């Protein structure tokens, strides 16, 4: 049957927002998202702030109960009832190493907590051994284990967060902007750590970030989100060199390139205006209000993802560069 480690089908996550005394409007944070991730693979998820990346991660991990849709992990449908059984398989690493770690806990306790919860050791000695092995795995050492998280730099804190996620020996990790708060010199250390761990442990990642340089580097495939929907998915080299969705095109043309000659030579597709509110998503194609190729059909009919080249899916009535 399914070869995929993870399969997400038609995932929707709506939040009711009070807009008046008796009125609520649905904020459609994620509005019908589907993708697959294979064992040991990295899928990158990019898009501008508020497009729903974090919500996709939280919703598929069932930190929220999805409004609609199916998540299949290793051939089994994940539900509110059986999610506890998957908690060991699926983990998450957050962006902010400062706020996601309890400053009053020692490193040993932070990394040991999931071991305690899932009772993954036999006696004090084994617990300590496991913690030290995890710290070594992420480039820290046992000397660090008695210190508090606030005594560490941003990069080191992110390593602690990764060690904690790895404690339960997961197969899949949602990485939500895990290097966005770090300086480039430190960012590269953490990116390499993620890659080494993937090779060593066969981990699969959903790698969420807004920096396309980073996502391209990390991912085999990339999905681009706009207003709660995936508008394009392709191999990461293809999406950079041959973006077909007009939104992806402008997103890529806006990335600052750290090379003065290339930066000055390239043509920008500057997007007009700003992203509409997810409480008032345009009918038809949600990008049409900012799209320079929009036609009549875009106003009334919502495009679906179609495979327009091998492994390259686009949801657009007027795809470019075919």
């Amino acid at each position, binding site marked *: 049957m399914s070869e995929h480690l993870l399969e997400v089908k038609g995932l929707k996550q709506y939040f009711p927002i009070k807009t008046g005394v008796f009125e609520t409007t649905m904020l459609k944070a994620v509005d019908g998202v589907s993708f697959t991730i294979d064992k040991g693979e990295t899928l990158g998820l990019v898009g501008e702030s508020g497009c729903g990346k974090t919500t996709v991660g939280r919703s598929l991990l069932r930190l929220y109960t999805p409004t609609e849709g199916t998540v299949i992990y290793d051939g089994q449908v994940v539900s509110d009832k059986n999610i506890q059984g998957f908690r060991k398989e699926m983990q998450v690493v957050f962006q902010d190493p400062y706020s996601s770690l309890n400053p009053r806990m020692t490193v040993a306790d932070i990394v040991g907590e999931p071991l305690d919860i899932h009772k993954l050791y036999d006696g004090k000695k084994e617990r300590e051994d496991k913690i030290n092995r995890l710290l070594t795995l992420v480039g820290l050492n046992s000397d660090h284990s008695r210190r508090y998280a606030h005594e560490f730099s941003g990069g080191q804190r992110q390593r602690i967060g990764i060690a904690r996620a790895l404690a339960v020996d997961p197969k899949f990790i949602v990485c939500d902007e895990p290097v966005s708060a770090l300086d480039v*010199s*430190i960012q*590269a250390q953490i990116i390499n750590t993620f890659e080494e761990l993937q090779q060593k442990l066969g981990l699969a990642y959903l790698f969420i970030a807004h920096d*396309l*340089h980073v996502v*391209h*580097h990390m991912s085999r495939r990339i999905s681009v989100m706009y207003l709660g929907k995936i508008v394009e998915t392709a191999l990461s080299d293809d999406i950079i060199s041959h973006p077909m969705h007009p939104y992806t095109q*402008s997103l890529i043309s806006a990335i*600052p390139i750290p090379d*003065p000659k290339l930066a000055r030579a390239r043509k920008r597709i500057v997007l007009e205006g700003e992203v509409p509110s997810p409480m008032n998503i345009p009918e038809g194609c949600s990008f049409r209000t900012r799209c320079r190729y929009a036609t009549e059909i875009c106003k009334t009919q919502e495009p679906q993802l179609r495979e327009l080249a091998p492994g390259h899916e686009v949801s657009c009535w007027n795809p470019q560069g075919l």
Partner: protein
Amino acid sequence: MDEHILQVKNLHTSFKTESGLVKAVNGVNFNLDRGKVLGIVGESGSGKSVTAYSILRILDHPGEITDGEIFFRGEDVVKYSEKKINSFRGSKVSIIFQDPMTSLNPVYTIENQLIEAVCLHTSRNKHEAKERALEMLELVGVNEPKKRLKQYPYQLSGGMRQRVMIAMALACEPDILIADEPTTALDVTIQAQILELMLELKDRLGMSIIMITHDLGVIAEMCDEIIVLYAGRVCERGSAEEIFYNPRHEYTKGLLRSLPKITAKKEALIPIAGSPIDLLNLPDGCAFASRCDKAMKICLEQQPEELVINENHLASCWMNVRKAYEAQKGEQV
């Protein structure tokens, strides 16, 4: 000869804190030319903002300029009287910050704030200032400017607020605009709009820009000249082409190597080892030496002097001295 509108010479700024003297800026030198964009790049804590605040003399309390000069049109800003520095801040040099909400007042309309900025720094009366406010919003490409004038900051998006900030900063027609991470909080498509706007306004109004950012991409897009800061010292400075294609400080080389690039083939990144510098305990030698894989004995002992690499490039790294020495020896053999 280019005309330097601003010359910073041997600037030292430190903070007397309870845990000791934080030496944030330690001998920074650079020149800003008329109509040019100068980029200041470095990791967090390298002294970028403190350099900018020193120029405007808006340092937070325990901060103090302890040495150096800042020449604006031949006059030393460090020696300016209170009165003179106030008019300098408003009408000669403006600053925009990463978070526009720190400089916009939440309880006043955009119009009131713009009018106040115009009246404070120019000789326009209230009525003229009102017209100018609308003009400024149009200039920075705010959509529906008449409606926006009546709105409050919280009613605007992040990109829109940054445009309003730029409008306020430019209301007094400054000679120099200092932009401290102006697009760091914005999405790339909005960042692209704002950067484009800044370059266009620079040409239209004939100002100079000091662009402060940690993002080498933004630097490459925007800047004519670049200075690379590490631990409050200038590692190297020069034209954008020199810094990117001929880096001559091991820190700059390390930065460029550690950057993932969509324009290059995927290869393992080469990170800079070690962790960030502790400004309370600056070493005697090169501040980067403890993280530098090329470090020699002298690097640990003595601060490198700034060496002329060519007419567009200066660098403070002992490796250049070694190279020069070896080249000379090679010739003699």
